[in-house]
């Protein structure tokens, strides 16, 4: 294990080197470019033995990864923002075909206005494409997810592609302490990819087929069951990871100081670091506050969220996303989880950080202050727009 000073992109590239995909196909886009550059350097210098395919677009990048996966290869691609939207057509081919491809997405705003900075509208707008979606907080978690994502995606009962999301710039381009494991440890953690879901002349089968109305829905049902199986696979992967690498992860969510909390802020991605610091500061003043970080948006942690929020007085969701004409999508999902569990906690919805707008510690403190009124509030952080959702 080597203690290094790496950016989120560099850490993720190290994780992919350790996971050892056989095919990498990618097209560069800011702020994802560095992960692709590092991987091409690793292939060039021989520290990663993979076929690196320079493609002409993101649509081709994922198509190429699907082709590689369809002959039984471990495949990787990476993208961001408009690139992810451009490959959207292929996302459902990968998930419907049950190809366990891993993709890194550098979360970036979507045009227009054109903007290269971070928010999560790109990936959240594709929540229904059948991919597992994980949001990491820091470079270490990024590296670790590069390894765990393949373990989870390739489980036979899961067989679902996996999107690992890193906040653009604030995570992809920020340097921080990262432990880089040895290749032997990584190999002990992650077995080679074995599948029957491939083109094999000795065992002929049909892939990428069409299915009429009679059976089509059954395939979609099986696809849904597959991504639900990822919940158990996440638990198993993290247990195995802790045994080999000594680092613990907490499943679909991470609850921080929520055991006796009256007010909980729910968020995802790298802003959780600032929320955690704010929670610590408010706790020192005796305020009963906590953080619930959603790590996986798909499969969605309905049960876990209900468990944490069962006894709180009020909660808020802070997300870098808006479903125009309605509300934040994470907010909708959290409310649905609570409604299904019969928990009448008032939940407020805050949209923040769009287009890379800074979220300050004072603003987070302000959300906790608002929660004390125990009234449901929805607004754009720093702009207002309060009540316009109702």
């Amino acid at each position, binding site marked *: 294990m080597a203690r290094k000073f790496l950016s989120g992109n560099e850490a993720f590239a190290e994780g992919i080197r350790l996971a050892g995909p056989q095919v990498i196909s990618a097209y560069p886009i800011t702020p994802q470019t560095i992960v692709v550059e590092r991987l091409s350097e690793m292939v060039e210098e021989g520290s990663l033995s993979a076929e690196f395919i320079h493609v002409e677009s993101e649509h081709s990048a994922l198509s190429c990864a699907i082709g590689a996966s369809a002959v039984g290869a471990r495949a990787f691609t990476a993208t961001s923002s408009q690139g992810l939207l451009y490959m959207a057509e292929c996302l459902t081919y990968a998930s419907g075909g049950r190809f366990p491809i891993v993709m890194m997405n550098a979360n970036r705003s979507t045009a227009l206005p054109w903007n290269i900075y971070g928010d999560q509208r790109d990936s959240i707008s594709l929540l229904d494409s059948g991919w597992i979606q994980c949001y990491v907080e820091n470079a270490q978690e990024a590296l670790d997810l590069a390894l765990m994502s393949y373990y989870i995606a390739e489980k036979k009962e899961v067989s679902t592609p996996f999107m690992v999301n890193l906040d653009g710039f604030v995570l992809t381009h920020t*340097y921080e*302490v990262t432990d880089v494991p040895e290749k032997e440890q990584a190999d002990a953690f992650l077995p080679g990819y074995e599948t029957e879901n491939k083109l094999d002349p000795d065992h002929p089968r049909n892939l990428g087929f069409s299915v009429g109305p009679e059976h089509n829905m059954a395939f979609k049902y099986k696809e849904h069951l597959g991504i639900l199986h990822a919940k158990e696979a996440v638990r198993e992967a993290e247990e195995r990871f802790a045994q080999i690498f000594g680092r613990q992860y907490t499943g679909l969510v991470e609850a921080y100081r929520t055991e006796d909390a009256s007010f909980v802020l729910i968020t995802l991605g790298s802003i*959780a670091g600032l929320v955690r610091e704010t929670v610590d500061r408010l706790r020192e003043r005796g305020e009963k506050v906590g953080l619930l970080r959603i790590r996986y948006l798909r499969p969605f942690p309905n049960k876990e969220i209900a468990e944490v929020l069962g006894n709180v007085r009020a909660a808020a969701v802070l997300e870098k996303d808006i479903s125009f004409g309605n509300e934040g999508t994470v907010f909708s999902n959290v409310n649905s989880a609570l409604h299904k569990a019969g928990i009448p906690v008032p939940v407020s919805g805050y949209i923040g950080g769009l287009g890379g707008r*800074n979220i300050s510690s004072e603003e987070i403190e302000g959300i906790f202050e608002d929660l004390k009124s125990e009234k449901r509030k929805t607004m754009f952080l720093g702009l207002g727009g309060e009540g316009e959702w109702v």
Partner: protein
Amino acid sequence: MTEIIWHGRGGQGAFTAAKLLGAAFILADENHFALAFPSFGPERRGAPIRAFTKLCGGPVGNRSEVEQADYSIFLDETLFTETAYEELKPDGRILLNTKQEVKDPKVTALDGDGLAREILGLPITNTVMLGAFTALFPDISLEDAEAAVRQYMPERLWMKNIAAMEKAAETVRKGAIS
């Protein structure tokens, strides 16, 4: 937590210095943590840029730009104006690359350009100013900064940059201004 703002122009290596400082700090002690990042956006040679280093005894959760620094380091004196004091904590200090004498106890001045031209043969002052900083800041040694150069810069750059850092640190320790 110690927060540092680096001021430079595109091409002067301010972000590289911010990174090397973070790397040096984590090499100094295995309980040290750091963040380093530039002011994000398209880069142009010659345009003013800022970079940030945060040094801490635990993980750093706040990824926002530094608003008030403990140390503000100017690789280019044309960027040093009165506003420099607004982004400084009350007991903050400034490290300035200049040939002028500065009569302000908050400011440590040295002729980084002259030093860089003499040793590197180029007016690129990022490692010079990092070396000078090791003489100002007690929690990091010149050796830590040299180790960071060896770990994170290409080998062909080691010798001259380490020599430049040593000379800069010595200049500040002697209190020799400009």
